[in-house]
């Protein structure tokens, strides 16, 4: 690790962090919901609309070519970022949810039939449950759920037992949004492949915190959102191995995704355009490219080291608070401190923290089965990014002291 990681300098790149909220300096600990954007991302979007705005892959005019170069340049950045082997394997979507739904509608409807199994885990976001439930209902297939233990670790032995010749797809989170658990993704993929099943990882909570190499993981699909990776909302990524994407039917029909259209027959476009029907979020893609540049400049060696230290510091600090229980204590975690308190409901914790300018998420985090597993209605969740500091954690602890004061 180099010693150039200067968090105060980094914070200066994020204009929103200079704000006051409710008369207090903003302490932003809701990065799991969405991350803040550096000035370079904001500038990229403003520049695009100020100087380049045109449709992509259409016109012969100069700006259209520039827009296409920007958009395709962003695709190449994403490809490098997750070490895919080919730009054609990078599909722009709106978000993680759309990526999963694309695979469910396209791959799933073609390849999953009555009596087949789809495997998910007990710690999925609703977006990695509901599309599969809908598909299972339509096809008469079964949704199987790998259980987790009290720490929030996946029970790999149970997963092994669940795999069979009936398993047609495994779709599992890389990092749990409610618990922070980092799952053993390469092992999960190997085990799925040993039974001939493709594997999809929901990487929404992974890509902001750790390097992801889709070839090393040997996953067949990998999905994530731009807005949790310091990019804009409205842009997401589906990575798929070309051999799968080639064989899959299109998801949305329309412009862009065709080679030729007659009323008798339409010929679909090549990858990746086959899956990008309609005018895409060009500015969003360019913004995501700028976000990836920013993250690459910092480097994951430094990001991970800083965040691991913060997570340790935060875990130690919260652990000393009487009547507070951390939910999710896996050995390998990324960026998430979920907790409940004997004295106060998470909503009340959230309101009292907000009064002090501290933003956390409260509720079930779109992961109700996780809450059911731990027999709690909700948690308060502090989620970290590389621009957070020990002072942010100290403010959280002080904020929690105030919760105790009001409710005891």
């Amino acid at each position, binding site marked *: 690790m180099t010693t150039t990681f200067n968090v105060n300098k980094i914070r200066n790149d994020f204009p929103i962090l200079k704000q006051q909220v409710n008369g207090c300096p903003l302490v932003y600990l809701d990065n799991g919901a969405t991350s803040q954007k550096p000035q370079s991302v904001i500038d990229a979007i403003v520049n695009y609309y100020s100087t380049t705005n045109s449709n992509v892959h259409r016109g012969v005019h100069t700006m259209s070519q520039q827009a296409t170069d920007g958009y395709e340049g962003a695709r190449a950045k994403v490809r490098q970022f997750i070490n895919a082997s080919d730009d054609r394997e990078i599909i722009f979507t709106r978000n993680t949810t759309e990526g999963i739904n694309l695979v469910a509608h396209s791959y799933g409807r073609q390849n999953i039939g009555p009596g087949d199994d789809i495997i998910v885990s007990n710690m999925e976001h609703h977006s990695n449950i509901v599309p599969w439930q809908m598909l299972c209902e339509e096809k008469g297939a079964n949704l199987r759920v790998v259980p987790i233990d009290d720490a929030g670790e996946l029970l790999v032995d149970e997963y092994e037992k669940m795999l069979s010749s009936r398993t047609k797809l495994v779709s599992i989170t890389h990092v749990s949004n409610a618990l922070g658990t980092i799952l053993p993704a390469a092992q999960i993929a190997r085990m799925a492949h040993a039974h001939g099943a493709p594997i999809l990882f929901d990487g929404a909570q992974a890509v902001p915190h750790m390097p992801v190499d889709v070839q090393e993981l040997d996953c067949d699909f990998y999905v994530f959102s731009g807005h949790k990776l310091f990019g804009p909302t409205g842009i997401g990524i589906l990575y798929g191995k070309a051999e799968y994407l080639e064989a899959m039917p299109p998801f949305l029909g329309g412009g862009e995704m065709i080679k030729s259209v007659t009323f008798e027959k339409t010929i679909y476009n090549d990858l990746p355009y086959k899956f990008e029907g309609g005018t895409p979020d060009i500015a969003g893609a360019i913004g995501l490219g700028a976000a990836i540049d920013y993250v690459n400049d910092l480097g994951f060696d430094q990001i991970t080291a800083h965040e691991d230290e913060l997570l340790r510091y935060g875990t130690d600090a919260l652990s000393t608070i009487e009547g507070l229980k951390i939910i999710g204590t896996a050995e390998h975690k990324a960026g998430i401190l979920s907790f409940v308190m004997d004295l106060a409901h998470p909503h*009340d914790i959230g309101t009292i923290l907000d009064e002090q300018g501290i933003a956390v998420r409260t509720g079930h985090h779109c992961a109700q089965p996780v809450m059911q597993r731990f027999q709690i209605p909700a948690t308060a969740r502090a989620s970290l990014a590389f621009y957070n500091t020990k002072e942010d954690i100290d403010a959280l602890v002080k904020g929690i002291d105030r919760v105790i004061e009001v409710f005891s």
Partner: protein
Amino acid sequence: MDGLYGDLVMDHYRNPRNRSPISDADIEAEEFNPFCGDRATLQLKLDGRGNICGVSAQAEGCSIIQAATSMLCDQLQGKSLDEVAEIGERYRLALRNGAEGESELGDLRALQVVRQYPVRIKCALLPLTALEEGIKAYREKTG
């Protein structure tokens, strides 16, 4: 901050009223908040003239939903269903505009402060929504 968590709110939160279940309720309703899984369950018993003679409520969740449920139930005893609808309307207005000069609402007046915390208004309204749904279903059933 004591604004939201004032003495009256905290009292109803810590000591909710009307919690004993009614075995032969005429009106039963349950409402969830899909964002947080909070829940309010209400039961009402009506006398021969159609006025409320028994109230029971259970709430699970944050202090606001629990206090609101307790406070709302306190206002229902002896009321007709039309009067209940009026209380509901007044309560809704108080959450939007404040409860100045509003004497019918009893302790519910303390919740007018929630209007300064817009994301919490749905917590305060959940028991009322349950009540209204329950009454609507009862009226449909009994014509």
